[in-house]
């Protein structure tokens, strides 16, 4: 089953970033799932989009080497679900190639909204009508008609909806239509309701997908969406075109529109009362790099929830909302519902052990037999796969966690600065020693014994060192998780 995943705008990109982390950690997915992420954004230089793309590209590089035959051993394996770009799929009747990027070009237009509309060629009467619809004041950059579209719609869905209205004729959409041929494939859309790009792109895209003239497999496909409602507040910035005071009113207006106009199988809604941490009010471009937020992680879980539902589970239009077990500002693993804990969070625990083992332990133990057998002394700092894995596990994954830990709400379940015994904040692994002997928890010698024991057994089934390393990481992480034992699920 292919899941065509439209991630629209900055929030779409940030949720995709979280989804990439969840998939890397082995969160529960169907065995036959292939995800086709399609980032839709006018703002091709957006910092959030760049970080999401970086993650997806690394994911693809790692997965291709870790599973050379294309199949992960099970659905809980790290990097289990393939992520494929739309341009790599076969597309019937598509006349234009769209490249291999996960961020295909939405429109070839570059310039202001005014030039997009070809205002200079309009009749006077049309021009006057336009002035009644859009702000055309003297402000050189923030007046609506003067907005530079190369950094997105700056929180103005009334502009985005005009641009997205042309989506049907965009090469990327035509390519998508040609590539969508299987009745079991599904469509999911990630967008925000309070910004510019997501809130305008989502209804336009749904309108296209629902159109009676649309080809049968698309019309019949199971479709879902997660709509992210306001969950953060911005710094006051009078120079910015983004007005956060309109977030709630825009949300209300859009919700009433969705109620009557959006007909999908599953509609997930998530939002949060903004915390004390204010985001920089950046209109777009490379400087827009908002910290990861737990709301984005839970929105990413909605994608997995939709993918994990069997065909028989869809019974007409269904709405979902997410609720925490208790409304605390500081969240730990115990705050989330059992389904999230089982399907997502335990995978993060396991992946965090693997991250610490690969990034912290292995480089300090390259003389050991298991490391030599995997050619790690030669490959760790130079091989494409190993460098990508280091970047993903050591940089991207930990930065994502660190950003959630630094946000409000705060989600800070792991402490990478301490040893393995203290990695999971919720439970310190207890050591039972007497005069230096006994169970010391997850020590260097424990890890060495585990890796030394496991790696030779993997040689026959996985002769390629890249695949063997990935299986070793999973097996060591399993042993660490066993050592950790069950976590308390009672809120105190």
């Amino acid at each position, binding site marked *: 089953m292919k899941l065509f995943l439209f991630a629209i705008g900055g929030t779409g990109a940030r949720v995709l970033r979280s989804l990439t982390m969840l998939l890397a950690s082995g969160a529960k997915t169907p065995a036959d799932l292939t995800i086709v992420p399609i980032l839709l954004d006018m703002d091709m230089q957006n910092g959030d989009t760049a970080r999401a793309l970086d993650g997806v590209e690394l994911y693809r590089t790692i997965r291709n080497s870790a599973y050379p035959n294309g199949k992960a051993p099970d659905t809980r394996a790290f990097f289990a679900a393939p992520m494929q770009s739309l341009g790599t799929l076969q597309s019937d009747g598509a006349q234009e190639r769209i490249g291999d990027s996960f961020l295909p070009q939405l429109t070839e237009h570059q310039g202001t909204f005014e030039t997009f509309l070809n205002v200079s060629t309009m009749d006077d009467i049309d021009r006057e009508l336009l002035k009644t619809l859009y702000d055309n004041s003297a402000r050189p950059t923030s007046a609506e008609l003067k907005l530079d579209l190369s950094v997105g719609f700056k929180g103005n869905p009334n502009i985005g909806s005009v641009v997205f209205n042309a989506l049907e004729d965009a090469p990327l959409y035509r390519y998508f239509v040609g590539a969508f041929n299987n009745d079991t494939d599904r469509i999911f859309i990630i967008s925000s309701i309070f910004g510019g790009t997501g809130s305008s792109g989502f209804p336009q895209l749904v309108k296209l997908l629902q159109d009676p003239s649309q080809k049968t497999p698309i019309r019949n496909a199971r479709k879902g969406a997660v709509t992210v409602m306001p969950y953060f507040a911005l710094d006051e910035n009078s120079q910015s075109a983004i007005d956060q005071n309109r977030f709630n009113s825009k949300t209300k207006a859009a919700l009433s529109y969705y109620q009557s106009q959006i007909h999908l199988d599953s509609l997930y809604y998530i939002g949060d009362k903004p915390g004390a941490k204010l985001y920089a009010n950046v209109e777009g471009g490379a400087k827009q790099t908002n910290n990861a937020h737990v709301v984005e992680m839970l929105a990413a879980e909605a994608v997995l929830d939709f993918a994990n539902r069997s065909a028989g589970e869809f019974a007409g239009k269904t709405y979902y909302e997410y609720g925490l077990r208790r409304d605390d500002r500081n969240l730990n693993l115990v705050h989330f519902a059992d389904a999230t804990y089982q399907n997502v969070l335990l995978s993060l625990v396991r992946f965090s052990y693997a991250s610490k083992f690969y990034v912290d332990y292995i480089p300090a133990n390259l003389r050991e*037999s298991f490391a030599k057998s995997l050619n790690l002394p030669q490959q760790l700092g130079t091989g494409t796969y190993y460098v990508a894995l280091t970047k993903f596990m050591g940089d991207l994954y930990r930065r994502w966690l660190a950003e959630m830990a630094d946000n409000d709400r705060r989600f800070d379940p792991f402490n990478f600065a301490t040893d393995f015994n203290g990695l999971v904040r919720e439970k310190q692994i207890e050591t039972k020693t007497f005069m230096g002997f006994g169970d010391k928890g997850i020590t260097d010698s424990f890890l060495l014994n585990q890796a030394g024991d496991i790696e030779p057994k993997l040689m026959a089934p996985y002769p390629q060192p890249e695949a063997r390393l990935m299986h070793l990481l999973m097996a060591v992480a399993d042993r660490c998780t066993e050592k950790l034992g069950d976590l308390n699920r009672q809120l105190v």
Partner: protein
Amino acid sequence: MFTALYELFIGKNPDPTYRNAVFTSVGTLTLLIMLVLAALFYLLLGRWRAVFHRTSHWILTLVIALIIGFSLAISYAKDATGEPSADSYMYGFAGVNLLWALIVFVGASALFRRGSVYARHTPF
């Protein structure tokens, strides 16, 4: 075989005891002890736990093996010939036996390391 090996380096001793009772016994005993030491390192400790598996541990084992090889030759030759103290021939013999011990231990290491878990790449 052992007689030829030792006499190749240190020449023939006028005392027939070396040929009749020392060379073959010491050579065979050295071979067996080196095999046992290598097996202990790779197949016993090297499969039990990662406690004695590094190159430094292997070098320590090798030094012990060489001391055994050297002192075994001296002690056996003294006993067999009844000499109260070691002469230069005995030292030469011990030196060749040390070399023999070295060859056997390194060869056995190359052979046994594949059967080890934690010392598969020690020291090579």
